[in-house]
């Protein structure tokens, strides 16, 4: 870990301004992913802006009937919030399917969105990785790629986004709120928040330098039955091979998003319309143009079957 200076920010704008002044700075909140990566020198900030003191840890009702989740709300608290449990069950379920109790106690809402991939080649600094060292190549292509993306990947990167929470948020169509260094705020629809790798896999979100996530806003509840189905080898404390966030209405309509298949939570709005026709129709639409590797081709069948299981569960 490279040495870094450390400051505790007092307001979001101050934090953003501080980060803009120091291009080598990073915000730290939960730290559960950043410190992991700093120990391996995959992240090497020279300055850390501790944002834990910012008063961003509330979940408040919005005038639109939704909820505004402070960026620093811990995963445990978000999952346990009675309003989330009642009206946004898929989000609660997704959070509880992720990581461990200890990590959820520390990890924040914003930090969870900003998690970096768990690709083992990204984690091994001896290996080429375009995400870690742009231009060095992708070791996962032609290597061990069982966990990797089957859709939306590029010749430069086939990593997946590891978050469960973000998959549920994609199904819920949340908005990410960020503050700019000048103190103004910007709202980013979750659909536009995470990027596909393209030629620049090291750029993972559409946040601009210095921008600090302050909140995630949930639109008003959409009702329906909420299901989050996470498939993994180990029963707990493991990243998803495939996950499905589904919200299904009585009439069979609804929304579906997938985790574990792409560089971002994967949702194709057109696939939602296929819901009444069943899992195969949905999966076909969602995963059209999928390009799996030999190691992860099973994810196509698995995604379809998991969507099917989620729909069965939703029907009760």
């Amino acid at each position, binding site marked *: *870990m*490279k*040495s870094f200076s450390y400051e505790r920010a007092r307001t979001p704008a101050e934090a953003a301004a501080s980060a803009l002044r120091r291009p080598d700075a990073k915000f730290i909140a939960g730290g559960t992913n950043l410190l992991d990566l700093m*120990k*391996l*020198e995959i992240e090497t900030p020279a300055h850390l802006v501790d944002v834990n003191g910012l008063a961003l840890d509330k979940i408040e009702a919005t005038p639109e009937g939704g909820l505004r989740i402070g960026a620093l709300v811990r995963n445990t608290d978000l999952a346990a919030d009675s309003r989330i449990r009642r009206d946004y069950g898929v989000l609660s379920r997704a959070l509880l399917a992720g990581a461990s109790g200890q990590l959820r106690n520390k990890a924040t809402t914003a930090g969870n969105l900003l998690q970096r991939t*768990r690709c*083992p*080649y990204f*984690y*091994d600094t*001896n*290996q080429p990785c375009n995400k870690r060292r742009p231009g060095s190549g992708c*070791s996962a292509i*032609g*290597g*061990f790629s*069982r966990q990797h993306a089957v859709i939306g990947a590029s010749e430069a990167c086939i990593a997946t986004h590891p978050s469960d929470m973000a998959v549920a948020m994609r199904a819920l169509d949340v908005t990410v709120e960020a503050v700019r260094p000048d103190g103004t705020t910007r709202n980013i629809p979750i659909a536009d928040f995470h990027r596909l790798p393209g030629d620049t896999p090291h750029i993972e979100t559409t946040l601009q330098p210095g921008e600090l996530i302050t909140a995630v806003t949930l639109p008003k509840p959409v009702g329906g039955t909420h299901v989050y*189905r996470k*498939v*993994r*080898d*180990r*029963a*707990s*404390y*493991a*990243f998803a*091979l495939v996950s499905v966030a589904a919200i299904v209405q009585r009439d069979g309509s609804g929304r579906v998003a997938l985790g574990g298949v792409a560089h971002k939570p994967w949702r194709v709005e057109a696939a939602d319309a296929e819901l009444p026709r069943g899992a195969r129709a949905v999966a076909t639409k969602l995963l059209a143009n999928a390009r799996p590797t030999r190691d992860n081709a*099973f994810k196509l*069948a*698995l995604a379809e*079957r*998991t969507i*099917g*299981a989620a729909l*069965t569960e939703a029907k009760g």
Partner: protein
Amino acid sequence: MKFDSPATTNPIDRLKVVGQPFSRIDGPLKTTGTAPYAYERHDVAANQAYGYVVGAAIGKGRIAGIDLGKAKTAPGVLAIVTAENAGKLGKGRLNTAKLLGGPEIQHYHQAIAVVVAETFEQARAAAALIRVDYAKEQGAFDLASLTDKAKPNAITGGPADTAVGDFAAAFAAAPVRLDARYSTPDEAHAMMEPHATIAAWQGDKLMLWTSNQMIAWNAAEMATILGIPKENVRLDSPFVGGGFGGKLFPRADALLAALGARAAKRPVKVALQRPLMFNNTTHRPATIQRIRIGATTDGKITAIGHESWSGDLAGGKADGAVSQTRLLYAGAHRMTATRLATLDLPEGNAMRAPGEATGMMALEIAMDEMAEKLGIDPVQFRIVNDTQVDPEKPERPFSQRQLVECLRNGAARFGWSRRNPQPGRMRDGRWLVGMGAAAAFRNNLLTKSAARVRLDSSGIVTVETDMTDIGTGSYTIIAQTAAEMMGVPLEKVKVRLGDSAFPVSAGSGGQWGGNNSTAGVYAACVKLREAIAQKLGFNSAEAEFADGEVRAGNRRVPLTQAAGEAGITAEDEIEYGDLAKKYQQSTFGAHFVEVGVDAATAEIRVRRMLAVCAAGRILNPKTARSQVIGAMTMGVGAALMEELVVDRRAGFFVNHDLAGYEVPVHADIPHQDMFFLDETDPMSSPMKAKGVAELGICGVAAAVANAVYNATGVRVRDYPITLDKLLERMPDVG
């Protein structure tokens, strides 16, 4: 004491303390965080500096150049040791690869440098500043492509190949035949405590506070590597945070702490970083196995053949996957063969039940497959083919063999009769449910073991031996042994372990620790009893030690008085005659597993587990049970998730951390049932005990595999059994 004739009645048979389910005597220390592990010995040496290990970035080749410039001038750096400046290092007898590589690199993450600094943070940061240029060489990283080039290699306790009768002819003539290939992957010990050492030099003497299973081996090995006399090396390893074979030999932490301390002229502590451990240390090697079984239509095996291929670095050893097939089932015509290919992956070596663990993973699926072909219940098929003698050398009976009893007892307890032999027919909601069984088998190994016992004037019995407790319960069973022998309550016994200044014990490995180390303590206690009797003028054959007294005839003397001010000390060693040659000594068991397989996603979850074992006298049923259920847990890992994935291009294990290399977590393991059958084995030692710690892993993965087959009808012969291997052949869901 020489143990060369079967044990007769002795003080252990009183079973007042031995055989009782005492809680671990080290429990209060371990549960309060006060048991000191190697890296935590702040008290033993002042001014400890921190070492951080740099691993090689290539699988095979040479270091063309190494630039330490920036690292040397980084804050806090005290010294950097590489092969260039380490001085001449010898090659140990026990390791295949060098612990400090360079300029030749033998495997990925082979240690090439240690950076010593004032703080851990400084050492880690400076280590990242070292720049290395490599000249990569083409390595051999793919076992499957090298089976043709593999050469015969002897396994522990036997030759590479064995043959009895005419296997080929008998197999060809058998009316029912199975010929199948299986594979097991490279696996990691992944013990929770990383390898760690604090090293300090006093003149030319080296002190190592380390985490190690085999103290005497390691003191000698370190002396060889460093080129110093054996008596100049002292090891202390009172608490070991797990080993499973991964801490049998010295590792880079010990060598680099020693070299770092010499260079920095200060005590140095080094722990292997977790992401380095998987490629830097040893692992259980992958195997490819072919099993052929021929039988009569009524299920009698007439021919059984087992071949195994594994790989290792040049000069390494093969996995002994065929070993149990030489002993487990009857059959007049038999063959086994072991082949070793040269690979440039990290060093393969012992991991919990080396040989039987991998061999049983394959053999016990084969037995299930064969039973199905025969239309015989798989438990019954095993019973039908029991043998009470070594099938390769029928003149050698087993000392004890209760395999059939284990199978029958386990089947009854588990409700095996409720199993539907037709796969895919049992359903519980979203779960396809299946049951599987397998035999458990592991040899009992005898090796000499010494101890020193002292009785002091306060009536305290202190045992000293270089035996280790790696979670096995050594502290407790040794205390129980001494308490039983000396007729004192358990609280009156103090046990000191893991110091190379103590008498040399069996150490912990090969499930030999429990029986041999307590037998060594028994021998020392016999000598102490004689010394006490002699001092008191008692006839030592008549003297009875009980309730803190020595009694003979009408006389009774409290031990406190017998000890006198000076106390009395005795030391002895158990050594063995040829009983193990005359009698095959093995441990047996039966595993029963119920799994659920998600009908949609093919996720596999274990629902019930049961083991019934027969392994000689059980010295402490509580700690022995823990050993077995712990091994069952590791077996579930082997069955369902554990695999070091080889990148065959760059030549390394890709998933080299505890997120990538999945081992079972709480949620994977249901309540486990485990029972021991009554058994005493007078051929094994005066304790009449045998090993038990590794028996529990042997066969359990196959029981899981067989249960998955029973649940789904999908037979997977390549471990681990993950959902992607089932998915295509899973029944359709609506």
